[in-house]
């Protein structure tokens, strides 16, 4: 007993000493005139765009002796928990990664963010205002997007699609259903879907499908009270998911694997198609055996739909917002940083990394065809992405509801009614 306690005590002492000495190191960093800004991001993954971001920040720090940006990266899934806990304790960082629309709104309403109106003209001719609006509340801009997330692209395996009898990819929903049946007949999984986290069916599928049925003003109207979710077009859109499921379009374990795993299935060649957003372009191009075998298509058109059949759902990607609690000097430094960061150079580098950007950028032949195609879809206009526009509760309901539809536990009508009820209850 004595020996053990002695050893443990010794370890304890050593650790205390070690901890104390590492504590001392912190004191040395506070220099005289350098403005330090802490930036919270979710750039923990080894993705090309994260490398681009970090490189630019490193360069910025080098070129600016009086400003130092310190990055703290938190895993994406835990980011919100941490951010919201700190917000509740009124301890937000100086700069923080935010997501557009309804996800940045609470921060704005709580007065936590600084409007960027004074420097917004910097990007007037570079980024279309429609996209900047994704980060605007009541006419004030709060962040600049670094990329556009198109959420609804169809990646397909050219070989498998051709084998099923389709030399060109279907352009209408009816044709798509035909393709699915043909694939099923030859025993190939038509679409790889990983809906464990619930958002894919809503963000990737419904955002565009619903828009093609209802038109782009539908969501706004409903949220304003000028419309209702209990709407034939919307219900038809929801039914598409159920219909696809009944046709056997998806892999059987669709509700138990996540998006990344389903993408792997597609890359492996186990499925002919994979519906995903522009975030998948990079990983697919990186991992697939034959890049030329992969094609990308926009969603098919839906007969009877009232919306623009060419639009694709998309939303501004990651932006960095500024804490409203900064001193004047810190604000200046922050603005300086934002202007430097969201520069043409960054957008160019992102394009090279297969990221769709909001700015107009020159593209040469080194850029893969898939990327150029995907990028061109955005030119047809962007429609709202549901989880960027709905409140968290409504998003929760539609996410869960879509999953319920796939297991036959809810009808589209019931889901629409449930959403309407929640909307009215929250008013």
């Amino acid at each position, binding site marked *: *007993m004595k020996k053990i306690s002695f050893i*443990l005590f010794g370890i304890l002492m050593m650790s*205390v000493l070690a901890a104390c000495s590492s504590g001392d190191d912190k004191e040395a960093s506070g220099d005289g005139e350098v403005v330090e800004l802490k930036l919270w991001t979710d750039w923990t993954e080894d993705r090309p765009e994260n490398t681009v971001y970090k490189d630019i920040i490193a360069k910025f720090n080098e070129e600016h002796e009086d400003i130092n940006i310190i990055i703290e990266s*938190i895993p994406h899934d835990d980011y919100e*928990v941490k951010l919201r806990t700190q917000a509740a*304790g009124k301890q937000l960082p100086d700069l923080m990664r935010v997501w557009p629309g309804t996800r940045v709104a609470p921060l704005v309403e709580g007065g936590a963010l600084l409007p960027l109106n004074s420097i917004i003209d910097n990007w007037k001719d570079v980024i279309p205002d429609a996209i900047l609006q994704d980060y605007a509340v009541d006419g004030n801009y709060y962040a600049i997007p670094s990329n556009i997330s198109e959420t609804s692209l169809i990646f397909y395996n050219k070989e498998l699609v051709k084998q099923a009898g389709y030399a060109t990819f279907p352009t209408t929903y009816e044709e798509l259903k035909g393709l699915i049946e043909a694939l099923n007949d030859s025993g190939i999984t038509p679409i790889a879907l990983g809906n464990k986290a619930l958002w894919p069916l809503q963000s990737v599928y419904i955002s565009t499908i619903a828009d093609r049925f209802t038109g782009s003003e539908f969501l706004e109207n409903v949220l304003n009270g000028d419309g209702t979710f209990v709407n034939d077009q919307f219900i038809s859109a929801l039914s598409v998911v159920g219909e696809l499921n009944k046709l056997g379009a998806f892999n059987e374990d669709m509700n138990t694997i996540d998006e990344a795993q389903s993408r792997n299935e597609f890359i492996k060649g186990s499925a002919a198609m994979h519906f995903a957003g522009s975030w998948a372009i990079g*990983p697919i191009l990186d991992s697939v055996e034959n890049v030329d075998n992969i094609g990308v298509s926009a969603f098919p058109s839906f007969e009877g739909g009232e919306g623009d059949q060419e639009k694709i759902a998309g939303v501004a990607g990651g932006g960095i917002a500024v804490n409203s609690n900064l001193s004047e000097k810190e604000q200046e430094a922050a603005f300086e940083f934002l202007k430097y960061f969201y520069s043409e150079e960054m957008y160019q580098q992102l394009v090279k990394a297969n990221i769709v950007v909001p700015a107009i950028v020159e593209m040469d032949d080194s850029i893969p065809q898939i990327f150029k195609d995907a990028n061109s879809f955005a030119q047809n206009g962007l429609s709202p992405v549901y989880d960027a526009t709905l409140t968290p509760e409504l998003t929760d309901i539609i996410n869960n509801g879509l999953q319920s539809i796939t297991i036959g536990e809810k009808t589209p009508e019931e889901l629409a009614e449930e959403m309407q009820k929640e909307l009215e209850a929250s008013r």
Partner: protein
Amino acid sequence: MDTIARINQEINGTTSTKKRMKKTLIYMILILFAIVNVYPIVWMAINSFKSEEEFAVNQFGFPKEFVFQNYVDAWHTANLGVLFKNSIFVCITATILTVLIGALASYFLARFTFKMNKFLYTFFIFGLLIPIHATLVPMFILMRNLGLLDTPITLLFPYMAFHLPITIFILTSFIKAFPKDIEESAIMDGAGIFRIFWSIILPMSRPALATVVILNFIYNWNEFSFALVLINDPTLQTLPLGLANFAGQFTTNYGAQMAGLTMSLIPIIIFYLFLEKEIVNGMTSGAVKG
């Protein structure tokens, strides 16, 4: 000798075949139990040697090539050296402190009668029922007000507070069961209360002490939520946080993650093996024979 053996057999009522069958059966059950328990670890270790591409296509079998890069990646990207140091410090300190003050409190709650005894005991036990996530925000605000955020000792406090209930629960019940005359001889020799605690009670509680030490260490080692919310400084992060970095929104570097997890498993297993002997050692000398 023969007669005694025969009598023994008659008493036990079993033949040697029956005994062998019983033993075999027991072994079979235990082996099944062992396989079921070991499988995830073996799987994890095997997969830690697969490259990301290979994992995507082959999740079950042995890796075609053993990739050590995962371990290098894990160590460097996640800065595992620093994380290990932090985790070890926090876990050992928190565990020692918790068990010490917990044992102390348990002793008094178990062997002394006083008015508040039952109340205090139940008060501590309440802690078992508290859902941790409910306290994330209040804890954050509290630590911020106390100026204790982002320090090397930050995590010690919530870890101690939330593991005292189970520590006290187990220790009290164990100490209560000691025969009543344990302390008698010591008292007669004029020993003070704390002396009795240190030299008699603690040694006698070894199995229970080892149990709570292991429990505390494990809970602290794998704890994630408080570490996420109360620590920002990358140089102060603990292992679970670093390992979480491997799982992103769109991609997960499974190989490196498995490597990191395998590495983080080693200290606990060593620690457990180290303490395991203590759990099995029955009552030590000084106990009162029956």
